[in-house]
């Protein structure tokens, strides 16, 4: 009737923290370390020439290293409007994340807990913005936005939010699939109002997933070029726009390197933040496991 139960009263499963099955030993450990180093190298290697280029005032062929070091690239990037562009990019991405994350969370919750008719069709429709080539969609949408006389900034946010919603929705769906709705029922029985249930139970339980979803939505805004060019109509100049225009010219390699490097920093900082927010004081794996129980 009951599965084997340890003295603690809770089942132990292979893969639980502390299980010897997941300990690496001997050759397995070596393979793991080597592959980790290789993968890290794969990601870090492209950054090396960028780092060098960023501080090269002059670097003529065939010299192996820059022939003159300095900060001219930085000055040139700032002169080309890098700082306002950085501000515009940050603002745009944060706004997109701030709008797309709650919408995605609500959509995911409705889809997961069966409040939506034909959930499969709705899921496919939500995925569509990812599947469509952005250029095609944006050209069409732009006509609509112009006809509706929506200001370019609002139109840009609108389109980017639509493009970010699939990511936030699907991230949150995974979280809600593992979320036991009875936590909220228990909280209500304990006297919590709907607002308290949301604030004190639901949000803390899905906080790590919310951070992940917001990060993805931020990236949609942060890395966008096509939508900003077409819908923004040149009114909003973000970091990718400045980088692209500099890269199209000649002799801007140092400035482009500086801009590329500075484009990496904010997402990395956010990733670190999201990682910290997602960490619980203790291992939470046991109680976060979904439960399948009879309802009546």
């Amino acid at each position, binding site marked *: 009737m009951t599965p084997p139960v340890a003295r603690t*009263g809770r089942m132990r499963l292979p893969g639980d923290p502390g299980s010897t099955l997941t300990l690496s030993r001997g050759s397995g450990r070596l393979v793991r370390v080597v592959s980790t180093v290789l993968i890290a190298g794969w990601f870090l290697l492209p950054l090396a020439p960028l780092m060098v280029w960023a501080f090269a005032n002059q670097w003529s062929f065939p010299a192996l290293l820059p022939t003159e070091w300095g900060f001219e690239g930085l000055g040139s990037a700032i002169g080309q409007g890098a700082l306002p562009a950085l501000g515009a990019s940050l603002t745009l991405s944060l706004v997109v994340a701030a709008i797309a994350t709650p919408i995605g969370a609500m959509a995911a919750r409705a889809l997961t807990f069966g409040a939506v008719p034909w959930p499969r069709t709705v899921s496919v429709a939500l995925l569509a913005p990812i599947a469509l080539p952005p250029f095609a969609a944006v050209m069409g949408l732009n006509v609509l936005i112009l006809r509706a006389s929506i200001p370019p900034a609002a139109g840009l946010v609108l389109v980017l939010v639509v493009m970010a919603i699939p990511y936030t929705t699907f991230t949150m769906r995974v979280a809600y699939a593992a979320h036991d709705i009875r936590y909220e029922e228990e909280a209500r*029985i304990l006297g*919590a109002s709907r607002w308290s249930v949301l604030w004190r139970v639901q949000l803390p339980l899905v906080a790590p997933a919310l951070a992940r979803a917001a990060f993805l939505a931020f990236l949609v805004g942060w890395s966008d070029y096509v939508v900003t060019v077409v819908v923004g109509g040149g009114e909003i100049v973000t970091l990718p726009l400045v980088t692209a225009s500099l890269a199209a010219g000649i002799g801007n390699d140092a400035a482009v390197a500086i801009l590329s490097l500075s484009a990496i920093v904010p997402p990395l900082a956010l990733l670190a933040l999201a990682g910290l927010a997602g960490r619980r004081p203790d291992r939470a794996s046991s109680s976060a496991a979904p439960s399948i129980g009879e309802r009546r």
Partner: protein
Amino acid sequence: MSADVTLHAVSKTFGTARAPALTGVSLQVSAGSCTAILGPSGSGKSTILRVIAGLDEVSGGLVLIDGADVAGVAAEKRGVGMVFQRPLLFPHLSVLDNVAFSQRVGGASRTESRRHARHFLDLVQLGDFGARSVQALSGGQEQRVAIARALAAAPGVLLLDEPFSALDPALREDMHELLDDIRQAVSPTIILVTHDRDEAAAVADQIAVLQGGDLLQHDTVDRLYNRPDSLRVSRLMGGLNEVAGVVEAGVHVSPIGRVPLSAGTPDGPGVLVIRHEAIEVSPCTEAEAPRSGVIGHVSRVRRYGPRRMVSVTFGDGVVLQAALPPGEAVRDGCRVALTLPPAAVCVVPLSAAPR
């Protein structure tokens, strides 16, 4: 701080499900008592708790708490506590803050709610565990904290939905003792759902037997064992003996013989039921049947915990099962006299349902 709970002809159908989860269930649980709702899986046990708690609305009928109709009253305002099979401790709160949750959402300060919570952690003998994270608890401790958390909200009614079924037997007995302590300390009205009749008998004053959404019988533990209303109740309570026959002037007449009944049993066809624990088995004998007894032959003896279960066969192939006292045994094929004490014999209506 205990409340009466009354269900009046409550029915519940989920969405488009064809079979209703509950059909016309009427149940009265008086303040401070403990009733166990016993039934097989899918019988609607948990649904009864959910409609009392306000997590599901009834499809028909009334739920009264302390005489007041609670239709339309939100779960958070019903003054009902509930503990599920999973402890559902909030993983982002410490043990103490879990227990303090109800006070905190009720508007108390952090300090005040924690002070209040400590008292209830003491009550479940986990006074030193307040600062721990809930991941550091064992299964039994988690369920204790869940009970403390429910009690800290000072509910008039405490609903327990198979709270101990995931625990091993030794822990379960500890929890039964804890439940006794709690009843003495705060005496809430308790409604406990279980599929384990031993658990129901161990902790409850009364048992309500549920099958397929029907409430079959709500009675004291003794009466459910010895005076079942129907064959279905007798079987759900683990009854093994059923002998079809006819009642004539206070005596049940059947292939096993004439069995005297307690006064007031109406004449007519009926099925005799008796608990296997209530039958006395004589040693092998050639004597005549005693006054309230019958004579049969032992056809099988098997182990039944510390006891032995004897199958005794009569004419027409009727078999009675009897549990021998621990340590005693009889031979196969032996002729024995069975004493069926009138107080333990009960006649229920014939039922169309085959066994």
